[in-house]
């Protein structure tokens, strides 16, 4: 029951997230640091809600805010933002 993946990108299970919460994580960032949930390619777009639901059992949901959002919010190819290659 607890083995299903909550964060698919980083393959983090419900059990691992519960352990992080038991370890003292009270924020999405705290869970992320302990488990990598939300660190993957989709940057938490899928798992953030699920982790929030789990955190809401110990925290006021109004206080569960997303981790700091920094560019890029979409995966961008490094070659697209780098200077052109010298020919």
């Amino acid at each position, binding site marked *: 029951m607890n083995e299903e993946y909550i964060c698919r990108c980083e393959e983090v299970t419900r059990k691992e997230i519960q352990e992080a919460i038991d370890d003292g*994580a009270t924020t999405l960032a705290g869970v992320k640091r302990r488990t990598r949930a939300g660190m993957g390619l989709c940057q938490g777009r899928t798992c953030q809600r699920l982790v929030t639901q789990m955190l809401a059992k110990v925290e006021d949901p109004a206080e569960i805010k997303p981790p700091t959002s920094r560019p890029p919010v979409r995966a961008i190819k490094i070659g697209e*933002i*780098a200077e052109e290659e010298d020919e």
Partner: protein
Amino acid sequence: MKKNADAVVAGGGVIGTSIAYYLSKKGMEIILLEKDDLASGSSGACDIDIILQSKNPGIHLQLAMESAKMYKTLADELDFDIEYKATGGMILIENEDQLKVMKDFVRRQKEIGLEVKLLSLKEASKIQPGLSPHLVGATYSLLDAHVNPMRLCFAFSRAAKRLGAKVYLGTSVLDIRAENSKVKSVITNRGEIKTNIIINAAGVYAPFIGEMVGLSLPIKPRRGQIIVTESVPKLVMADVLCAKYIAAKYNPNILKESDNPETRLGVGLSLSQTRDGQILIGSTREFVGYNKNTTHEALHAIVNNAVRLVPALRNIHAIRSFAGLRPYTPDGLPLLGPVENVQGFIMAAGHEGDGIALSPVTGKIISDLITEGKTFMDVSELSPSRFGPLLGNENAV
């Protein structure tokens, strides 16, 4: 909350948790206070490198070498996977001027006993494919390694807790009470803790803790921005820096006036790949106070610097960026040890970008100093009083 402790550690980063662990190991009753969460500051917003060759020959390199030794057995000792890996590390050299500097750097490092060598581009490319053909060579040391800094914090914290330490998260130090210039208690948002010793391991926030006992600490935040890529198959074989990084690190003044954004932002390459396959590309070195935003200018500067040196990065996707604040000191060395005038107030902050590398040795030194009054090597050079009297603050006790 517990109301008294042999010592209170302020700060739940790699330095504070390490100190809490080593002190607990010596049988002391420790309380660690963290205003937010473990690794929520600089320790959770940095690269993963434990690089010896970037350290200036002297006490800095000696500390790093001692720490590197400790790292080898640390995961076993803490019984926690800290994702430590001895990958080796290289510093890329782009031109003859840099080569000259690095030759001298390597010579002096060797004198201290560091195993490091100079490689031709061809030799370097065998170890790390994908290097730009314009490079003239690289230095290389097998001793360089990396670790997951966040897991390191959790590992120290858990091990400390097993030894009886109390770790209070979401708990801020509001004030420090002293009588006759001796620490008596620490006031937190959750109550008062009686103790004779407080260790200031608050990193960039250490000056605020210092102020509580009237100290004016010469630590200021220096922002480092880092870009994270998607997970990709092993691409970064060794932890990679560039010689410009060494220049940016030790000669901040030469960077200030430049028109080139890369130079102005103090960009030096730091490249490493985590166990999960994400590549961290760093970094800037900027003085912008406590501002942790990332900037568009830096994104470009970091990326341009990185693809110039390692063109293979072009086809990989960046998925986020972050900025961390490094606790800068004027001489690039941490403040370790007691301060004059306030008995029981111990400094352990100011590691700038070397906190991860120096975390174990810092914990060992501080615990030695507190329990035995001395440590295995002479660290008087790192005494906070090397900057002269730190008083001059109205909160002086």
